[in-house]
């Protein structure tokens, strides 16, 4: 029964995919599309009998007849329209994708700078070995039918290359805007970020919508490759509104002594799932994955972070926080795999959730799989309301209970925000969080 439904819903995409597969594209892209198409045909849509999707019902995504945006749309947007999503007063490299396709007239810094090249997938000619070697290698789509679907489209997305020893001072900002199309639309951005040996970069991803209530689906895949000693600082802000479905899979492979720091801020969509898979392939690599999500009535946030310690002396940290209000759901899976031989692994994991409503549900699964003995691994999880004693503290100082609760919630959430090293984003998010929990 499930299979029949599955295939019925898949046929919707198959005709779109057939058209896409006819298009001319570099060999590397065609290969990824072909493999994606094959896997999409084979794989079932994720369902709740699959361990990774146990608490996330994707039926609303599977059942909605989304129309994939396969050509650049007429959007009529101008730079001032984007001011609230972008940072116009900052000198950043900014790639703006409207409904899945790059809008060069809204972007800036496309020429890159010494040591840095940025491009969009649709205009890639495929003759560049630095990208060819990595495109589609980490995520060809085998992880789920959704990543397969993304691979099968592979229409547009950002390509970033930072040369050996280069350390561009300007952050690279990828902005994904979806506009009102009159019908439920889907986009499948596909990004590739390559940092050569000792390169450093800051990458910001922003997902927003012009009309937040519109039903829409973003199914993004990002691959990142960090060479020896490379350092990537990545911030993702997901704020595309309560009508949106957002699935994102990011796969990172890290070379020797490289460093990856990630922040994921999610401000609530109907179903949001952010999956991060980090492979610590080289000795002494470090990664720190941070996250914060704030959800309201009718929203679901699913964070999945997997770190594979494949080499000795690597260090990792997973720290995710959530604040749940109304009838909202949060799902967390943090998984540390320590492979045989990955001695002197140092790994910590903490998931904290604050519940503001009796109707909110949290499902958390911090997991450890360890096959080496000289390791230090810890994980922890807490779930609860703002502590009564702390609210009492505020009340003894003449503040209302609501004020105490609001300030405590703000303090809880802001702990993640205040860690951010990029001041303009930190200030904007800090204001956002404060406004959200400020009592009337």
């Amino acid at each position, binding site marked *: 029964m499930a299979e029949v439904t599955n295939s019925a819903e898949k046929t919707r995409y198959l005709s779109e995919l057939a058209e896409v597969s006819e298009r001319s594209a570099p060999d590397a892209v065609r290969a990824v599309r072909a493999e994606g198409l094959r896997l999409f045909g084979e794989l079932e849509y994720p369902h709740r009998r699959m361990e990774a999707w146990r608490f996330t019902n994707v039926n609303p995504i599977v059942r909605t007849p989304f129309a994939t945006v396969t050509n650049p749309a007429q959007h009529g947007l101008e730079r001032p329209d984007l001011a609230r999503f972008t940072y116009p007063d900052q000198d950043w490299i900014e790639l703006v994708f409207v409904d899945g396709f790059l809008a060069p007239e809204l972007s800036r810094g496309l020429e890159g700078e010494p040591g840095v090249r940025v491009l969009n997938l649709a205009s890639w000619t495929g003759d560049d070995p630095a990208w060819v070697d990595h495109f589609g290698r980490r995520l060809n789509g085998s992880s789920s039918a959704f990543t397969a679907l993304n691979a099968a489209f592979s229409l547009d997305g950002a390509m970033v290359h930072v040369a050996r020893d280069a350390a561009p001072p300007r952050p690279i900002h990828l902005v994904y805007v979806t506009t009102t199309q009159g019908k439920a639309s889907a986009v499948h951005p596909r990004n590739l970020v390559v940092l050569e040996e000792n390169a450093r970069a800051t990458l910001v991803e922003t997902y927003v919508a012009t009309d937040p209530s519109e039903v829409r689906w973003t199914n993004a895949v990002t691959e990142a490759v960090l060479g020896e000693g490379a350092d990537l600082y990545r911030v993702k802000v997901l704020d595309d509104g309560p009508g949106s479905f957002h699935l994102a899979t990011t796969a990172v492979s890290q070379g020797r002594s490289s460093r990856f720091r990630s922040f994921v801020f999610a401000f609530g969509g109907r179903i949001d799932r952010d999956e991060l898979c980090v492979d610590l392939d080289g000795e002494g690599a470090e990664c720190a994955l941070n996250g914060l999500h704030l959800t309201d009535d009718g929203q679901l946030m699913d964070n999945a972070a997997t770190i594979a310690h494949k080499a000795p002396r690597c260090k990792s940290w997973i720290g995710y926080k959530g604040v749940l209000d109304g009838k909202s759901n949060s799902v967390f899976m943090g998984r540390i795999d320590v492979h045989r031989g990955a001695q002197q692994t140092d790994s910590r994991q903490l998931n904290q959730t604050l519940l503001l409503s*009796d109707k909110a549900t949290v499902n958390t699964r911090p997991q450890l799989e360890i096959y080496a003995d000289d390791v230090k691994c810890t994980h922890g999880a807490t*779930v609860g309301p703002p502590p009564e004693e702390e609210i009492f503290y505020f009340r003894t100082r003449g503040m209302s209970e609501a004020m105490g609760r609001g300030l405590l919630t703000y303090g809880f959430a802001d702990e993640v925000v205040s860690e951010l090293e990029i001041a303009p984003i930190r200030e904007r998010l800090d204001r956002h969080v404060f406004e959200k929990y400020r009592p009337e």
Partner: protein
Amino acid sequence: MASVDNTRESGYTGSRIEQSNREVADLANREYKYGWVTEIDSDTLERGLDENVIRAISARKEEPDWLLEWRLKAFRHWRTMSEPTWANVSYPPIDYQQQRYYSAPRKKPQTLGEVDAELLETFEKLGIPLEEQKRLTGVAVDAVFDSVSVATTHQDILSKRGIIFCAFSEAVKNHPDLVREYLGSVVPYTDNFFAALNSAVFSDGSFCYIPKGVKCPMDLSTYFRINAAETGQFERTLIVAEEGASVNYLEGCTAPMRDENQLHAAIVELVAMDDASINYSTVQNWYAGDEQGRGGIYNFVTKRGICKGVNSRISWTQVETGSAITWKYPGCILQGDNSVGEFYSVALSNNRQQADTGTKMIHLGRNTRSTIISKTISAAEGNNSYRGLVQVMPKATNSRNYTQCDSLLIGDRCGAHTFPYIEVRNQSSRVEHEASTSKISEDQLFYCKQRGIGTEDAISMVVNGFCKEVFDHLPMEFAVEATKLLSVSLEGSVG
């Protein structure tokens, strides 16, 4: 002057090393103590499993029709199920038609005096004397040998207080109403694959009923022994504590050493009414297989308790040192308001042993509290997983859970895994979970060795310290046995 000192010092050290080497050699040669087989005349069913086998088991036990019907329903349901594969263990497929489902000593004793001398000797060897006058400690024992209970001690003292403690098959005959009321009420036969199998073919086990307001005057204990070859053991234990009652229950088990694997799929059901309290302790010492992983018991057990009444309490304490594979999640359903569930566990896997064990705490009532302390030790090529569920339902307001899972790794080929599931559905409850994994630090060992304590002893000391929080919850005799078991099971694991 200095040279004289040196000589004396090294001479002393030399003798210490020799001595500790001898001890290590002794330890390494000591094998599983309970690995022998008793030659006993027994009534064994042919291999295979179908409805006729179930009818035969039921007929041998002279069971009422309703029980046979229940078994058949369970069997029919079992045939529709498939073996679970989600556990983090691997083993060759089990051929359920190659097992024997019933084996019992032929001579059925009427009184303790009539117990077969062979059997008495067997339990004597296991350190469980069944002759009451020999008992120094006040523990009543129900001895289960293969598929039947052979003796239950101290029944007169218990019956004076209205406590029923007897073999399950006797309870079916003498207290059918009680059995019918509670059988399958906590673990229904539809619960899982092994529970369905057990419900179809269960042979014997213990039944215990503590009436209202009675505090059981002595610890109750069941001792399980698998003896026959190619036979699975499927026992069922049911403990009911009425309002205000309390009981301590101990369970022990051993099996002979054999090259083939044997299946043990048991069910334990606990029911605690208002203000009742049940402590259930297990020291599991089934044969674990040899160093190459040949033989050993597959221990696929379903244990669950329900805190039905307000202020009731169920506590599970387990020390899992045996079995080739352990698959076991003793859980508590906290239905009554203010009820308390506890789980204290030490699981050790050495050589090729695999353990996937943990607990389930289902909070249904208000102000319910649960504590989980799990200590796992992996050595050699052993693999150990903690798998636990803490579920706080919407009506379980003001509930509280604290979970701590610690893993200790000895050797670089073992594995330790943690898979907790936490689900919270109301905002006034608090759940905390923490877990750590580490190895015995060189510093700790160096400290001990510096003070003349050998490596094996030092490790044993550190391990015992690691497990102390759990051992503190075991009755005295069990704690002593558990400590000994751990040191025996760990021997030879230090390279």
